[in-house]
């Protein structure tokens, strides 16, 4: 495994006037690693994710990404064209609400194929075959390939969104509460699928969640946020089994025993 981080964040801050949404954030993501950002609602998790993934401008700090050719530029120094190209080839973004990440009015096959067409694939048969393969990998029946996502259940939509993101073999995936709106049994299935795909494809993942169970299941490392600051970070098992910061202790204690 590579000894260089794929993503490096230093002193990242995002302010809205005097209000600090997040500040003093520094961490690295290594190839093949899943990092979970946890914390309560309003702790700045999603702002942080948006700043890292270039969906929102940061106020200060740096975010460096290891390109496929080995360069390690700050994302702000890339041109908009490069950033957008990166975002639809090398990266994926899984939204909490699948409707934000899918085109609800075009078929599942076209949703999966869109990224392929965006990078210049012009062979209908190949695009369709690849889309069918990916639907199968995320456990959506091939016969649904021409159905629109509006006719899909919540869990299917989320799996379709995952397939759509993975079709270009990205190296880094951002996830914002990927199981947030799903009921428990569907959650388990999506989590299981994610864990399998992440391991199979060797993806690096930054996942935002308020659900410590999700973090424990998927992530190797964990960052705990409160009021826009990182209060604790470390290996997931260590943080959950031996929380040091009082806030983390409170979080862990709030998980019902079962």
């Amino acid at each position, binding site marked *: 495994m590579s000894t260089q981080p794929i993503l490096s964040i230093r002193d990242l801050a995002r302010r809205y006037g005097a209000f600090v949404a997040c500040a003093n954030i520094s961490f690295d993501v290594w190839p093949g690693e899943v990092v979970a950002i946890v914390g309560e609602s309003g702790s700045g998790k999603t702002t942080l994710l948006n700043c890292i993934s270039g969906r929102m401008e940061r106020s200060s700090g740096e975010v460096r990404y290891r390109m496929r050719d080995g360069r390690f530029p700050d994302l702000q120094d890339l041109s908009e064209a490069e950033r957008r190209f990166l975002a639809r080839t090398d990266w994926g973004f899984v939204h909490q609400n699948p409707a934000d990440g899918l085109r609800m009015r*075009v078929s599942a096959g076209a949703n999966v194929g869109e990224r392929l067409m965006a990078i210049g694939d*012009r062979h209908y048969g190949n695009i369709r075959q690849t889309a069918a393969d990916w639907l199968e990998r995320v456990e959506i029946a091939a016969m649904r390939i021409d159905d629109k996502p509006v006719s899909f259940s919540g869990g299917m939509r989320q799996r379709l969104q995952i397939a759509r993101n993975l079709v270009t073999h990205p190296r880094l995936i951002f996830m914002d509460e990927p199981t947030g709106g799903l009921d428990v049994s569907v959650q388990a299935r999506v989590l299981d699928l994610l864990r399998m795909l992440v391991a199979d494809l060797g993806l690096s993942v930054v996942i935002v969640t308020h659900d410590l169970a999700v973090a424990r299941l998927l992530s190797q490392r964990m960052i705990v946020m409160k009021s826009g600051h990182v209060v604790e970070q470390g290996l997931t098992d260590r943080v959950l089994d031996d929380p040091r910061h009082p806030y983390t202790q409170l979080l862990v204690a709030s998980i019902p025993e079962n």
Partner: protein
Amino acid sequence: MTGTDALPAYNFAYLDEQTKRMIRRAILKAIAIPGYQVPFASREMPMPYGWGTGGVQVTASVLGPDDVLKVIDQGADDTTNAVSIRAFFAKVADVATTTKTTEATIIQTRHRIPETPLEAGQILVYQVPIPEPLRFLEPRETETRVMHGLEEYGLMHVKLYEDIAQHGHIATTYAYPVKVEDRYVMDPSPVPKFDNPKMHCSPALQLFGAGREKRIYALPPFTDVVSLDFEDHPFAIQRFEAHCALCDARNVYLDEVVTDDRGGRMFVCSDTDHCETRRTEGHRGTGLPQTEGGETASTSREAAE
């Protein structure tokens, strides 16, 4: 009517000179960047949006006293829109009008490109309802502008993919997206895709005006215009099995005309000028009264073949 005294105090061709200068600047920019949508300050015209306000403004700006104007609507010279726009310019610019494609220097059109090939020196002005080819896939104007700027046109193929997935072939039959000079993807206005190949390397200047959306774009003469497609589903134009019932023409765009309430129908040229010209040349279709004997019809068909 006693000439100019009886007319209201319009400037030549209705628009004032400053407006025409503004529109001409937009046209020049559009010609300089083929396929790029140039914003312009579209004026209120004495007709509703959707009736060709964009085309009329472009025509008014390029029209000179010596021009000969032809206006077609759905290929026909005698439909309401064509007649009223022709009358409009005859009144406010006092220019000569014609229905003959070969005689016209400016042709304003809605939906069709004349069957008679255009020549150098002619200007074809299109009336465009929605200039943005990406609009129905991406509703945000800010986003579509960035997509044009960065040449991100994958989404256009998503639409064609959907067509094939649903219908087994590319079912888009009009406003079929084209790529201009290997750069901008352009909506060729609602012309049938039958006419798309006529845009490619046309010797005439082609101008597109969208009044409501306030955009002008252009194809200078001899511009590369390629219809988008997939490698395994190449672009193809409509094919008609019938011949024109009036002039027996083949390989032209035909309109289906219902003739009675018992399923009777006939196919006729949508380009009325082309049809009339052929009939004066002696071509006779099967739909014409056979008073001169079936012989004429059959000989003309043999001649055509």
